[in-house]
């Protein structure tokens, strides 16, 4: 191959930017960060494809494509209805709880954030008080929530957990969404009033459409928090509503830990979040094209 041909090939694949030494440094930097983030993921993936013997032997760094082993995943995804490692059920449970919670949170947080922007009542103080909910560790709410949900007879249900997660997700979402909508100039609200609308018209016609990207990001974050939450599920879910975080933790027992199954479960638990992030990302991009309010 001639040098020209090599160069043109390199260009075609976007390597030409490496000509500049500064850019090489940037690429190196990004590479390091990626390594930092992706290595643990890779390592989990690697473990999930190995047997216990392999793990406790001295495994190669690289997976051997010839001996990829999906046995661990097969165990987690049983055909018959078995209790211990029914990951399909755990995933469904977690997804229901996380989605219910994210929808509830968003439906409550957007009007709440708008009310704070309107500055109704003692909103300054209430706004701060809401944040204090996050100052205690979620576990501090464990006992009260146990009592509350059992009183209300929603303990052990999807709704129970979805509602309990509001404790830490609602403040987060309100703060996030408030940050977005307070950037919308109030003149636009006023234009709605003058055009004959009221506060609800403003919410529907201005606030929601203009803060869609922010709402989407908040939805994603809240969903992930709910998906990944562990402490409450221990006490507030039962066998039928067991979540994926509990499913993974099961392999960590007093008699020993099944690292390879745990790794496989972890890999499975990452997938739905990735899919959701991909969907939401599309929204974020379309949202951004709306652009500025003023000329």
């Amino acid at each position: 191959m001639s040098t020209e041909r090599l160069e043109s090939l390199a260009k075609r694949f976007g390597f030409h930017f490496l000509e500049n030494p500064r850019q090489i440094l940037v690429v190196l930097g990004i590479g390091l960060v990626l390594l930092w983030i992706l290595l643990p993921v890779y390592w989990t993936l690697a473990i999930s494809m190995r047997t216990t013997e392999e793990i406790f032997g001295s495994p190669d760094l690289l997976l051997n494509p010839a001996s990829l082993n999906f046995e661990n995943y097969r165990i987690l995804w049983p055909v018959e209805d078995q209790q211990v490692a029914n990951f399909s059920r755990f995933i469904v449970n977690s997804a229901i709880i996380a989605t219910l919670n994210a929808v509830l949170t968003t439906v409550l947080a957007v009007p709440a954030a708008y009310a704070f922007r309107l500055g109704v009542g003692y909103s300054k103080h209430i706004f701060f008080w809401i944040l204090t909910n996050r100052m205690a560790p979620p576990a501090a709410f464990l006992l009260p929530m146990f009592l509350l949900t059992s009183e209300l007879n929603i303990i052990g249900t999807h709704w129970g957990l979805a509602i309990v997660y509001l404790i830490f997700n609602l403040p987060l979402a309100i703060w996030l969404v408030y940050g977005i909508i307070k950037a919308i100039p109030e003149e636009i609200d006023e234009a709605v009033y003058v055009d004959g609308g009221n506060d609800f018209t403003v919410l529907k016609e201005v606030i929601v459409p203009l803060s869609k990207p922010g709402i989407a990001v908040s939805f994603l974050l809240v969903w992930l928090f709910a998906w990944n939450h562990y402490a409450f599920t221990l006490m507030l879910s039962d066998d039928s509503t067991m979540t994926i975080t509990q499913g993974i933790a099961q392999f960590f027992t007093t008699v020993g830990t099944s690292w390879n199954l745990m790794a496989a479960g972890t890999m499975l638990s990452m997938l739905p979040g990735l899919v959701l992030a991909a969907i939401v990302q599309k929204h974020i991009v379309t949202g951004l094209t709306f652009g500025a309010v003023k000329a």
Partner: protein
Amino acid sequence: MAQVRLEGVSKSFGDIEAVSDVDLTVEDGEFFVLLGPSGCGKTTTLRMIAGLERPSEGTIYFDDADVTDDEPAERDISMVFQNYALYPHKTVRENLAFPLSLSRRDYSSEEIDSETERVAELLEITDQLDKHPKNLSGGQQQRVALGRAMIREPMAFLMDEPLSNLDAKLRIQMRSELKRLHRKLGVTTVYVTHDQTEAMSLADRICVLNDGRVQQVGTPHEVFSRPRNTWIAGFIGDPPMNFLHGLLERSDGEVFVAGDAFRYRVPPDVVEELDAREVAEDVTLGIRPRDLEVVEDPGQDTFPATVLTVEPTGERSILTAEVDGREIKIETEPREFMGMQGETISVHPQKTYYYDEADQLATVSSAEGDVVEAVEVTDKHVEEVRKDGDT
């Protein structure tokens, strides 16, 4: 369409009194301009009429209905905001249609479409209907903002410096457009601006505001030719009116205004007025730069002035000179004034304004030179507009 009336309206923000005890009546169908310097309370007044701000005191009436506590939506007004406040996520078409979709009257979608088309045609933005506001030029956005206000026939149009973001050429074009629209629709309009040329050329009547207070209400001609106090006189007109302080001296039936370094003989018609009004000794003499004439010989009706600077501006030259320790401006033909710095010249005022001790206009000399051209044009224009409206 309605008459808009403010009675004793005040508005305070904490310690700041933005609007103080304003009484105004905007007649039905009138083009009424609120004019004043930055921070004088124009926007606040307009926002109170719109219902976006509640007066701290006073009452606002639309015709005979007290609307002081009504929400904006109940008042049936439309407003053009200073920086448009278009809905950024809606297309031009949706922006224009929005007020109709919120209207208490149920518009069918065909009606909304045809109204949108009509307004777009009127404002020549038919090509832009499917764009989003951010893809429009400033002038186009302006017209969308106007269109959104005009698509209904409200009780009143409220406009807050709607032309301030446009370049000079477009501004003048839109000005006549607005005038034409008002003539056509005849809707009561309250228009805020700090630009006196804009006010002069658009208004049926002008309300001059300063520091939250009404200074004067009148036709452009009245405000220009009989400014009620020295503040208004100094605010209306460019360059601003010159002021000289002096004492009235009477001798042999003649009256002079005398400062430390000048003694000016007051025209006879003014003397009568001053006597009739029993004006005390202290007076402030106001002279517009365009009414000052440089003359060859000093006399009883001239001032000695020391030339400080000369600014040729093409059509005219602006001389800055010192009279009695005060700077005055003189607008003259561009003659050879260059190199005259430091020389003393004689200037003759063709028209003089007299303010008494209480800073109230006592009288104006009937000019030798005539009423200022610009105002005549405006007045004629207004007359034309009136006639047009009648037919």
